[in-house]
């Protein structure tokens, strides 16, 4: 549920990066934080374990400028990817407006991507939301690993596994180098803002 403040003309939009453990959700946010430092007023908040794994969420707020006189404040969250943390994943999804599903393109992670996407579907259902209706963008991360000789899944396979029914926009990406990180972000912001506009009209 995005929150709209008619007095100060502010719209707050919640976008969540979801995906299996170690797929690069936090790396996406870190890259955005580093690259767009000037636009970001606050520090990125990361709640992580000693082993540098996300424990609860990462949070990165930034201003996107104005649309029709309203200040758009984008709030990016990640969920903890590890299987055991589904209770906290669900908490982070509360009131979500748009989702980036970060899939790990490494061949050995194929199963985990599918399982994570299925759980996203279930978690959304528990909030009476539908994965088919909520603004969603797929990001196939770690495509740079191919160059290092690590087996990755071809895009056709990822598309078939994850996006054959959803048919949402997708991007190959490499969060660590920044390849398509901004493209993914722009796409989810525009889909989400359009969806909010539609619901308000």
């Amino acid at each position, binding site marked *: *549920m*995005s*929150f*709209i*403040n*008619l*007095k100060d003309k502010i719209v*707050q939009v*919640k976008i969540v990066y979801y995906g299996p453990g170690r797929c690069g959700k936090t790396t996406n946010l870190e890259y955005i934080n580093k690259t767009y430092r000037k636009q970001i*007023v*606050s*520090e990125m*908040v990361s*709640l992580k374990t000693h082993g540098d794994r996300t424990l*609860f*969420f990462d*949070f990165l*707020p930034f201003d996107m400028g104005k649309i029709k006189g309203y200040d758009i*404040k984008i*709030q990016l*969250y990640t969920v903890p990817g590890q299987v055991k943390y589904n*209770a*906290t994943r669900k*908490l*982070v999804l*509360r*009131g*979500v407006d748009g989702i980036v599903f970060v899939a790990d393109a490494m061949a050995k992670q194929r199963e985990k991507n599918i399982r994570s996407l299925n759980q996203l579907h279930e978690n959304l259902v528990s909030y009476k*939301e539908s994965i088919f209706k909520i603004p969603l963008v797929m990001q196939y991360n770690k495509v740079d690993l191919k160059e290092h000789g690590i087996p990755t899944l071809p895009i056709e396979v990822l598309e078939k596994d994850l996006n054959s029914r959803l048919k949402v926009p997708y991007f190959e990406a490499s969060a660590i180098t920044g390849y398509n990180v901004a493209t993914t972000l722009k796409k989810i912001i525009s889909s989400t803002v359009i969806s*909010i506009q539609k*619901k*308000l009209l």
Partner: protein
Amino acid sequence: MNYGIVSQEQLEQIDTILTDKLIKLGVDCVIIIDMAGNIITAKDNGESKYDVYSFAALAAGNFATVDAMAKLVGEQEFSLLFHKGQDSNIHFSKIDDELLLISMFGKDISLGFLRLNVVDVIDKIRLVWDRK
């Protein structure tokens, strides 16, 4: 999906309640957030400079976690959520299923006195909110 929209008039009324009942009492900063971590309104004494957006995200997470723990031990909710520090303290109070009132205050105010006022504030805010 219902969007949280609050009118200018309602916000002004809520802001007045917060200022009269809490800020004038000596509370440093009061924030009303929803459970998704969005800020509904924030009022401060003009001196405190908190990063309220990060604060709201963390507070919503914190509250949701404690709420989930309550359910695990068979409680409906833990109604008092309070963090005490050397110089500043934070008090959380649920307004309804969607809204949370957070007060940050120093050592000049006693917790009991704050709680009494918070109860009063919440009653008044509910009246404004229900008119939505």
